[in-house]
């Protein structure tokens, strides 16, 4: 009734068990569903919170020296350059010569007061006194408005140019990076985007690596491993475990990608249909119906990056780097698991595995600012850090051969380490009562015993 199975068939059976038992767990389902909901919820929350709950800012400008204002008929003051202060829903100005007390500001509905005097022409600094701090955007608008108004004053008083002529001379240089090979734009702002991916990579490698370790410890401490090894080669068991758990990781990545896509699309539809969208378009000074969800996201400094992601490249390369990086670190985690009988004993053995991971994370964070630095490039080739470091570089455009070489190096290293780990694993997994010494581990690695049949 039984037919001996080939090594591949046995491996596939092990993979199936590792995969199915984990995917069926309630914790996996919860994490897989909750992850995207939290993420989309966060984005939606950011959009709604920053937009709708924002109070309009009403500013009292106390222009002591009359730099920017002229008296008007009714004892009021009007700006000398009305066009400098475009009409906005979220920001309005009132001008005067004197400061107002806190109570007065409060009573008249002002949220803050800007004090200007002669000194500003030299210092270029003014005081913003607020009852409630204005939003970052309102503050940036104010800074831009006052700069323009003061510039006009300076041009008028200190040169014989008119303002239009001055603007014609004024020069701001912006450098736009352009890849000569691909013709793509590059910018450091995309580094932050890549960094977000590298954090995900670190998280996945760590979480699923720990899964491997826990799986090995379970088999060892439950003493089930001896029964399994009477049918399965240790190397096949190890390879099956790493592959099965890796598939669980890929399933989660895929599920998150799909769920996120669905939820974002749904969120977009809901937002576009909502009344909130109408009022938002109005505050932005846009014609109703011209803006969609992407416009909303683009208007958010914190979220605009979502539109910049080349999802195909990031997910595709990310999956490959995850598989290889996870296999490499998974081999380490498995070896640690084989050496201990309970999880608590594994703690201090984890340090040598956590260090390179944490160091790569540190390197990746350095690469955000200078993605083309030698450090960033080298660390995206070194197999221990490449899965994490390359994720930072990817969004900025990387020559294809960099990616290919880095993947190849990683693949070779991973294969080598899984092989070495299997040597330690197959001896350590059957050892109870004592933890192998470093010398023993070295001996098993360099001079393997005859091992299984």
């Amino acid at each position, binding site marked *: *009734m*039984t*037919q*001996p*199975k080939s090594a591949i068939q*046995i491996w596939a*059976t*092990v993979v199936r*068990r590792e995969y199915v*038992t984990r995917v069926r*767990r309630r914790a996996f389902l919860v994490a897989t569903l909750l992850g995207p909901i939290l993420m989309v919820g966060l984005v939606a929350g950011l959009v709604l919170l920053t937009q709708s709950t924002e109070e309009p800012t009403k500013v009292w400008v106390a222009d002591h020296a009359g730099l920017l204002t002229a008296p008007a008929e009714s004892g009021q003051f009007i700006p000398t350059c009305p066009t400098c202060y475009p009409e906005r829903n979220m920001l309005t100005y009132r001008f005067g010569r004197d400061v107002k007390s806190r109570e007065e500001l409060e009573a008249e509905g002002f949220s803050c007061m800007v004090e200007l005097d002669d000194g500003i022409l030299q210092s270029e600094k003014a005081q913003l006194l607020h009852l409630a701090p204005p939003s970052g955007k309102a503050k940036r608008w104010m800074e831009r408005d006052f700069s323009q108004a003061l510039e006009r004053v300076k041009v008028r008083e200190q040169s014989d140019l008119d303002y239009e002529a001055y603007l014609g001379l004024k020069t701001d240089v912006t450098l736009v990076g352009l890849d000569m090979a691909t013709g793509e734009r590059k910018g450091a702002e995309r580094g932050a985007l890549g960094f977000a991916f590298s954090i995900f990579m670190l998280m996945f490698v760590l979480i699923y690596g720990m899964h491997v370790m826990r799986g090995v410890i*379970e*088999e060892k*401490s*439950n*003493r*089930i491993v*001896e*029964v*399994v*090894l*009477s*049918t*399965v*080669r240790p190397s096949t068991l190890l390879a099956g475990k790493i592959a099965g758990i890796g598939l669980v990781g890929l399933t989660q990545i895929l599920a998150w990608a799909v769920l996120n896509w669905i939820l974002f699309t749904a969120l977009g539809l809901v937002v576009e249909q909502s009344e909130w969208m109408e009022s938002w378009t109005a505050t932005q000074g846009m014609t109703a119906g011209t803006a969609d969800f992407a416009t909303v996201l683009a208007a958010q400094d914190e979220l605009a990056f979502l539109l910049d992601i080349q999802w195909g490249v990031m997910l595709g390369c990310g999956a490959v780097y995850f598989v290889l990086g996870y296999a490499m670190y998974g081999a380490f985690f498995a070896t640690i698991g084989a050496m201990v009988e309970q999880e608590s004993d594994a703690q201090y053995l984890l340090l040598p595995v956590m260090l390179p991971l944490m160091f790569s994370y540190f390197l990746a964070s350095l690469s955000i600012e200078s993605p083309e630095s030698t450090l960033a490039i080298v660390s995206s080739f070194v197999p221990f850090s490449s899965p994490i470091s390359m994720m930072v570089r990817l969004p900025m455009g990387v020559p294809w051969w960099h990616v290919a070489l880095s993947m190849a190096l990683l693949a070779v290293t991973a294969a080598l380490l899984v092989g070495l780990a299997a040597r330690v694993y197959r001896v350590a997994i*059957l050892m*109870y009562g004592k933890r192998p010494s470093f010398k023993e581990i070295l001996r098993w690695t360099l001079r393997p015993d*005859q*091992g*299984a*049949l």
Partner: protein
Amino acid sequence: MPTPVLYTQGVCKSFGDHVALAPLDAEVQTGRIVGLLGPNGAGKTTLLRMVTGITKPDRGELRMWGQPHHRDLLTRMGYLPEERGLYKSMRVAEQVLYFATLRGMARPDAERELKGWFERLEVEGWWNREVADLSKGMAQKIQFIATVLHRPELLILDEPFSGLDPINAGLVRNEMLRLVKDHGTTLLLSTHDMGSVEALCDEVILLHKGQKVLAGATDAVREDARKGRIRVAVRGNLMAFVAELGARAELLSKSTRDGAATAAEAIHDLELSLPEGWGMPEFLSWAVQHVQVLEAVPLRLSMEEVFVQTVESATP
């Protein structure tokens, strides 16, 4: 002579400086129940791990069913190690089916067989239960099923009854005997429970410090270990009898029963060791000339006594 299921010649295994198994020659014939005995650390587990393909011998010849040992032969065996467990996160039936498919069984066949086993071992209703809910005895029964489900020709059981109450132990024992009787399964049983060795094993192999110190049919082994020892009850003058016995045989122990009125009336229980060539009939015809022999039986050693005696005499 039929081809033995298991045949070893000069098989040995060391771990570093520790010799786990000195060159071992052993044989197990088809359809027999063979007890593998020995104190802890005698090399039993090492031998079983070689047979089950977990390790390889350093040297020597290991043949299974007449062939050099090979991985494809592993599916013809079922192994229940002493240290055993189950995956806590799996359901009972899933777990057993996993092992059956690993050993090359088709899943529908395995499911059908499993239903029968669940009935025979009285664990119906546990099919979809979590392993974590199983009692220890229950888990042992499930492990036994996982070992035999794929109908192995050679069943290797290491302490199969540990953790089982007498009723469940009986259930498992009957199933083992049924497999041997109905399917011609060969059973290699490693245990410290000498009672079950006496009750079950046709043959024993006793290992000590990696060496085979005793092997043979259980009855023959027990008979040989007797070494001419007998127990007699006699009435008469003990002092005179012992003096007459002199160096003819060794007096191992003597005791006198209470309640006799005179010394000549007293009944004495003696244990004697008869030398080779002076058997029970010769001894009796000699003894009746001196005392009244009430009772004379060969001293039957329990397997436990055989074990202790053999191991002690093998320890310098």
